[in-house]
Every structure is written in C-alpha cells, then in structure tokens.
C-alpha cells in the first residue's frame, strides 16, 4: 500500500509539473470557459433570452450552471490526451514496464484531472459571483456542485482514456473529441431549458447525462435546497450509472492495450 501511494504521488506530481511548465496552455484552459461562455454569451444573449423561459433573473445566472458542467465536460473529454501522447512516444511503455500497480498511472490521471476541474469550477463560480450570481444554497451548495461535477468528470475522463488507448492515431482522437463535445453541449440544458427546445431535441437531451447534471446544479445556484434535492438525487443516480458504464469500457480498453 505504501508502494501504491509512492507511485501515485510521483505520477501525479509529473502531471502537475507538466501543467506548470505549459503556462500558456494553462492560461487558456482556465480563461476559455469563463471568458467565452460566461462573460460573452452571458451578456450577448441577455436581451435575447426570455426570462419567462429561462426562469432565471438574468441569462448569465441561468448560464452559470451550464458553464460549470461544460467545463467538467471539456476537461473530462480532454483528460486522456496526455496518456495518448505517452502511448505514442513510448513513455507509457517505460512506466508500465516498471514494477508498478497496473492502475497507478490511470489513478494519478483521475486525481489530477479532478483536482484541476474542481479548481476551475471554483474560479467560474467566483467570476459568476462578481457578476452578481450568488449561489442560493450557499457553500454547502457549492460543495454539492463540486461533487456532481466530479461524478460526471470521472465517467468523461474514463471515456477519454478509453479512446486514448484504443485509437490508432491522435488525429482520430481529436476528431472523435470534436464530434462528441459540441452535440453534447447543444443537446443539453446548458444554453436553453428543455422546455424551449423542439420536441425531438428535448427528447434526445434527456438521454444526455449532461442534462441531468445541469438540472441539478441550476437550482442549487438559482433557487433553494428543497427545489434542488430531487434533481440532485436523480443526478447522482444517473452519474453513478454513467460512471459504471464508462469505467467498465475504460478498463476493457486499457487491458486490451496494455496486455
């Protein structure tokens, strides 16, 4: 067990070092969601959005939940990229030929992605706060938002890693990534509530785990606990099922790739 922690600590430290040396890319990952989605879109659609439809005091407070979950989505789906590069340049082989637990590399990656995602979610909620979006359920609500985010993120990161281990080239990886992420966003309640969608879209959106996560995060920000709790309960159930499926697929892909 002591060995296990030693491995995970060293491997996680590597991810942190990599990120800290890619300052430019760190800045962009951090700034992109709040700048584009929250500030630009929040203000751009302010007058186009109908308060009757969004059921929120203004569009930016409606959008906040969507941006939080979109950040989880983007971080999660990109979570396997570094492993993909490690696989392609042989670094993964070097790690896996060492006498380490087979799960250490993957676990270190989960820890890293989840930590970065949490920090980003907190930054987004902080920026939203500056724009007058004050979470109605207070700090416990923020903790619950993080929990839901993490539960969603685990499954997404597992999908990303499974892809990293299965694709033939990184071109394939990024094509699939691009193909997945935009429809996931538009076919969810991130930008408009389901009630405002054409029927076929709202039907599809209900099969999107992202919708469930957003529908739980949104009342935590906008209304109160009694309104939020049923959604939170459902979201947790959906996320656990989603995670179980993704982790199962991820483990299979990993075993196939690493013998």
């Amino acid at each position, binding site marked *: 067990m002591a060995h296990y922690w030693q491995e995970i600590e060293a491997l996680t430290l*590597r991810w942190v*070092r*990599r990120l800290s040396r890619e300052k430019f890319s760190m800045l962009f990952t951090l700034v992109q969601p709040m700048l584009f989605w929250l500030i630009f879109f929040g203000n751009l659609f302010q007058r186009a959005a109908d308060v009757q439809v969004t059921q929120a005091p203004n569009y930016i407070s409606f959008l906040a939940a969507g941006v939080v979950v979109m950040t989880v989505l983007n971080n999660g789906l990109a979570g396997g990229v570094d492993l993909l590069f490690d696989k392609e*340049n042989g670094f993964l082989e070097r790690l*896996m030929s*060492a006498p*380490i637990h087979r799960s250490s590399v993957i676990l270190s990656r989960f820890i890293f992605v989840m930590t970065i995602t949490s920090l980003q979610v907190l930054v987004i909620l902080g920026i939203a706060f500056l724009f007058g979006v004050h979470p109605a359920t207070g700090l416990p609500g923020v903790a619950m938002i993080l929990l839901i985010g993490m539960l969603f993120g685990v499954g997404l990161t597992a999908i990303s890693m499974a892809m990293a281990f299965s694709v033939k080239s990184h071109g394939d990886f990024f094509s699939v990534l691009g193909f997945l992420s935009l429809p996931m966003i538009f076919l969810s309640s991130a930008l408009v509530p389901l009630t405002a969608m054409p029927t076929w879209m709202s039907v599809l959106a209900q099969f999107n785990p992202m919708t469930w996560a957003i529908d739980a995060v949104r009342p935590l920000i906008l209304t109160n606990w009694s309104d939020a709790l049923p959604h939170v309960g459902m979201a947790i159930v959906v996320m656990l099922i989603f995670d179980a499926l993704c982790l199962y697929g991820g483990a299979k892909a990993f075993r196939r790739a*690493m013998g």
Partner: protein
Amino acid sequence: MDRTIAIDVNRLCKSYDGHKAVDDLSFQVYAGEIFGLLGPNGAGKSTTLRTLITLLHPTSGTATVLGHDTVREADLVRTLFGYVPQERAIDRFLTGREHLELLGALYHLTKEEAAKRIAELLKLVELEEHADRPAKTYSGGMKRKLDIACGLLPNPKILFLDEPTLGLDVQSRLRIWDYIRMLKARGMTVVMTTNYLDEADQLCDRLAIIDCGKVKTIGSPAELKVALGGDSVSLTIKETARLGALASAIKGQPAIRTVNATATGLDIRVESAEKALPAILEAANKLDCRLDFIDYHRPRLDDVFIAHTGRSLKDAAPAEETT
C-alpha cells in the same frame, strides 16, 4: 563464459488480427553476454522485446527472464530488468533529474537511495551539468543518454535496449557502444534489437537474425560468418540477359561453392579466390559477358543476412508496424 541461461524464449507466437508478427520463435540468452536481435523493421524484434518486458501476452509459447514466466510472474519479472525504449520516450517538460526521480519512486526507492543512485548515473552518462534543464533542450544524443540512465536506475541484472542508436550521429553511437560494453564488463546481461549490421557485428557476443517473425540463425558474428564457408565474389554484368548461361557455366567449376543470381549480376561463394577468379573470368569471356564491376571480400555479416533471408537488410521492406 558463464552458460547460465538468463532468458529463455520458447516457441513464441504472437498474432495480430491473423497476421503472425512472431512465428514459433525460440532462443536463449546467456547470463553476462550482449545478445542482439537483428532484422529489418517489422521482423518481429520489437514484438519479442515487448513480450520480454511483460507488456505483450504471447498467443502461444513462453518467455522466461531469470527463470520467471513473463505472463504468470509478470510483477516479479518487472523488478528484474531495466528497459530503454526507442528514442523519444522522454517527457519534454521534465528535467533529466525529474525523469530519474519519477522512476526512482516507481521502483520504490527511498528518497536517499534514489538521490544517491541518480547522482551516480548522471555522472556515468555525463549529464550532470544538464540534469536540471527540461529535456526538450536536449540533443538526440543527450536524450539517449538519459534513456539509458533511466534503464539503469533500477540497477538491473538485465538491460533491454530497443534500437539503442537509431538516428544518432556517429559520435553519439560510439559513445553508446562504449556504455554497453562497460555494462557487460560489470556483469550485466544486455539484450538489444538493432537493424544496423555493423552494430550487431561490433557489439554483440551472439545474435539472432530474425526475419518475418522467425529466427533464421543464431550464433556469434564470427561463427555465423565462418558458417557461410568461404569468401564471396560479386559480379555486376552489362548483359543481364546472359546471366543464366553464365551462372550455369560457373556452377560446378572447381573451388566454386554456390552461385546466386541477383538483379544485376551474380553472388558467388568460393573456397579460395585464387582458384575461383580465373575460372569465373574465363567463363565470362567465353560467353562474351562484359563485366561492369567485380568485388571480392571476406564474409561480412551482410552476407550472413543475405544467405539466411534471401535479401539484403537494406532492401528488406520496411513494414507498417514497429511497435
């Protein structure tokens, strides 16, 4: 030499989607020797190596390292060897020292043990001055040295090297060869893949020539050359239409062993050049074959390769897959 068997590969097969990357491959490596797997890209060298480092499960057959099975006892086997993958298996953002520290933790060394060993290794591969610079600033030769230091970090009994000098300049190559010889002098068993004939010839105590997933022949470079029997004469001819006639005229003459037609001439194996050359020239004259070029040489490893695979290593088609 010690004849203890360090590595035993027995009837190893590995197929991918019906394609046999390794096909009934067997060889043994003795403790303390430098053993080479020589062959063109896609011959099955890397597949064999990846089986030995426990990252591939054979379709059938077995491989053991110091008596331990690479599938059933994979965890144990991983503590026995060091591994130097092909170049680029380096994290550009980490410094040389951080690479070694990472591996130190993965081999479960304490901080003190690791620091001591890292200092020794950095000195050995002459990277002390550059140890705290990110690896993206390293030259190809320096990256290779770091790779080797990483492979040596667990202080292994066996070191696996995958194409250790691929793409290096001449000086760096010679340097790497020196390290490998030094490791052998310290009692380490070294197994390396290469597609350079001179490297196999200079460095390896014994080697296996591998082509199309099979071992074509095994032995020391000297044994393999002697086994060919005799020297080699190659002719390049203007009138290639008369090649067949010339070949049959030469065959059966005294001192001629074998005659093989190539695209532009003949490769002839002879017992002694003094007796064979006049006969060859006479036959050529008689048939009015004008010779473009004639070359006579003692057997080289290249000839061994051609004799066992039917083609030169240079001409061997590079395959689609080298992982």
